[in-house]
């Protein structure tokens, strides 16, 4: 009989990770300790690659790509504006997906990712807005024009601000995570509606003038550096997200023994 009980208890304590190795990574990812240790190993390499890709894209785009026939050299802001805008939008979806995973599987780790993603996305949205405004000056003659793209970005900044404000409003970590996850999900449903409405509103009030980022007619020599920059921004986003998530782990797990062991090992060694 003992072998039976042994087997039974091992199944219980081992959980599904022993049962199905294909899901192992998922359960491991749910462990803050595992994530903290592994991400510490990846981080230097990831940062190095991100730095190299960003530097390549910037030098290529700013110094080597040909200038735009209509907009001249001011068009080079595209190499910052578009990747930032791209990541600002994807960042919201990444945040919402992390929140959804947290709500569905009750995974602490993904709530931490969600919380970490909010300020990064907000800063990227700010970058997109700022560069868009600066780009507007030589193109339209004014820093702020109620252009459809820029207005959508502004609303996205408000959405990020809402998630962050809700996150900080609750003292209870659990309530803060779940409430802002719901808000992020509601936002995800609404972002396409908001963007479509703003596009429609813009065509209603203004005939199409020079559009920033007229992608389809872009020459390959201009497009390649942009692609490199988008990849670079994605890598940068990953680095920033890991850094912020690691802090969130430390903040929430500071009473646990593994964090204490980590600190004493560092102090001793």
């Amino acid at each position: 009989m003992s072998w039976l009980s042994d087997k039974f208890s091992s199944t219980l304590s081992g959980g599904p990770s022993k049962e199905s190795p294909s899901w192992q990574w998922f359960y491991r990812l749910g462990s803050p300790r595992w994530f903290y240790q592994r991400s510490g190993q990846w981080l230097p390499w990831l940062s190095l690659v991100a730095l190299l890709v960003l530097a390549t894209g910037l030098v290529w785009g700013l110094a080597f790509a040909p200038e735009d026939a209509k907009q001249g050299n001011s068009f080079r802001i595209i190499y910052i504006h578009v990747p930032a805008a791209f990541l600002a939008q994807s960042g919201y979806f990444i945040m919402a997906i992390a929140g959804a995973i947290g709500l569905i599987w009750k995974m602490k780790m993904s709530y931490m990712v969600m919380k970490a993603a909010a300020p990064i996305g907000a800063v990227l949205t700010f970058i997109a807005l700022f560069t868009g405004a600066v780009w507007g000056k030589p193109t339209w003659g004014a820093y702020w024009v109620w252009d459809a793209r820029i207005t959508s970005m502004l609303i996205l900044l408000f959405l990020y601000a809402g998630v962050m404000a809700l996150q900080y409003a609750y003292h209870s970590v659990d309530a803060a995570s779940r409430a802002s996850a719901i808000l992020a999900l509601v936002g995800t449903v609404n972002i396409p509606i908001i963007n479509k409405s703003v596009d429609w509103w813009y065509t209603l009030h203004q005939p199409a003038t020079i559009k920033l980022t007229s992608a389809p007619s872009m020459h390959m020599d201009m497009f390649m550096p942009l692609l490199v920059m988008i990849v670079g921004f994605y890598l940068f986003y990953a680095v920033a997200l890991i850094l912020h998530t690691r802090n969130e782990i430390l903040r929430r797990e500071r009473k646990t023994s593994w964090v204490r062991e980590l600190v004493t090992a560092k102090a001793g060694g």
Partner: protein
Amino acid sequence: MYFESFEALLNMSGHGVYVWSSLAVTLAAMLWLVIAPLFKQRALLQEVNRDIQRQQDRELAAKTASLSDSHEESN
């Protein structure tokens, strides 16, 4: 390089101010996104370290107190 000289690259036929200022603000914001968490992490680790020290001190104090108590009792 697309430009003939370094000055031409800086000037960008008059649009240099716009391009370089947006690059500067972007890089500053991105650096802040990376450097701020590093400082924060150091502060958090120090905080944990302080907690551990405080706990060890308390345990040590409790041990010496109990030792001196037993010493007094035996007298």
